[in-house]
């Protein structure tokens, strides 16, 4: 459907969020590998950002702040961010996902030290001793604050997805992971997130995950779609097969 030339003509509408889903996916995939278009895209994103300044002056009701602070008081208590890490570590959060059959990989993951987490937060591609890799995903504008990682075993035959900050969807919709190779998208998992906006699952795919160049997560009808149809929420490059 698309050729492999630059996507300059699509970038203005991409910055406005007005492309159809398949066009937007094509642009995102192209931007991963083309710095020329990425620079041009950044320029249009800057323009789009400034459009928000062109709104008429308006003020909400004076009591809105009181309503906010009241809502904060009655909201489910949150854990401060520093305490949150201690509350449930990533290996602990991964355990239900993988199950006993994957315990070896989890132990390998747990063997990472503190620097691993620091490096992950810096969005580096991390390879553990033994060859297991953790690849960070980037959130789109629709879910700023969401994070995710694809974990791939050394031989590429086993993998898992872990996401945080993706809000739970209504009963009619689920998240779907897409594995991308040569412009073709293959479903790798259909999943939901819990009330803490957290989710994790094993990636099921024929062959090796090392054969895929990128991943994306979209919102789809419950049960998943044959091809992506909904809004993309997370994505990122995988390997160079």
């Amino acid at each position, binding site marked *: 459907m698309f050729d492999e030339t630059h996507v300059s003509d699509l970038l*203005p509408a991409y910055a406005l969020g007005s492309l159809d889903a398949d066009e937007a996916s094509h642009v995102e995939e192209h931007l991963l590998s083309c710095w020329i278009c990425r620079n041009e895209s*950044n320029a249009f994103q800057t323009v789009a*950002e400034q459009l928000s300044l062109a709104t*008429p002056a308006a003020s909400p009701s004076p009591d809105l702040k009181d309503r906010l602070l009241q809502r*904060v008081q009655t909201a489910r208590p949150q854990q401060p961010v520093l305490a949150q890490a201690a509350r449930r570590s990533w290996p602990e959060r991964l355990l239900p996902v993988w199950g006993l059959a994957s315990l070896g990989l989890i132990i390998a993951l747990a063997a990472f030290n503190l620097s691993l987490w620091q490096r992950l937060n810096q969005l580096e591609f991390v390879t553990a001793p033994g060859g297991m890799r953790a690849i960070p995903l980037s959130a789109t*504008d629709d879910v700023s604050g969401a994070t995710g990682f694809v974990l791939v075993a050394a031989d590429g035959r086993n993998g898992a997805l872990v996401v945080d900050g993706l809000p739970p969807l209504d009963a009619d919709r689920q998240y779907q992971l897409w594995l991308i190779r040569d412009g073709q998208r293959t479903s790798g998992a259909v999943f939901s997130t819990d009330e803490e906006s957290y989710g994790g699952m094993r990636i099921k795919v024929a062959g090796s995950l090392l054969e895929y160049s990128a991943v994306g997560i979209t919102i789809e009808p419950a049960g998943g779609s044959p091809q992506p149809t909904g809004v993309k929420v997370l994505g990122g490059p995988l390997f160079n097969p």
Partner: protein
Amino acid sequence: MTSSADYARYDDERLISLIAQLQAGALDQLYDRYHRPIFSLALMIVGDRATAEEITLDVFMRVWQKAGSYRADQARVSTWLTHIARHHAIDVLRRRAVRLDQSALSWDEITPGAPLPAQNPGELAEQSLRRERIHAAIARLPADQKQALMLAYFGGYTQTQIAEALKQPLGTIKTRLRLAMQKLRDFLHDEQEPGDKSAQAVNTYNMSEED
């Protein structure tokens, strides 16, 4: 104990880090700084005050619950808040499944907007300048390009939806949006002072998102 006067002295990033530690006084201060532009943007998109107020509350509640995920190296706080507000408001609009009303939005009705928060006179002057620039740039666009731009940015509509609503060929709408954005980019680039921090911040944000 931190007083409201202390919070007022902190910059935005410091407030976010304190909100992540569940200090409601920091959220109170951030609300004072940003509730008007957020409400204005939400109102522009959804069109009624009650819903815009709910969106404003949701934005600040999200900040309260997700402040720990904010990354200063990716975007300024104002940029982060604007992203959350715009996408949440457009999501509300989509859930309503209302038919696209091309007459509901018009650049011509827009007057220079609500003053953004500023921590010092220099910043206030810079913000005023940026607002004047974008208004001047939009004013130069032909009416049909302004209309398409308005529906795309504030309406959250795709090019296909805009073409159907305006009963125009899809290619025509694509051309209008492309030309409008190119003209705005060129105009704002020409007007932009060297070393404009705001543009740099947004560029950094987008680079980080895509890398």
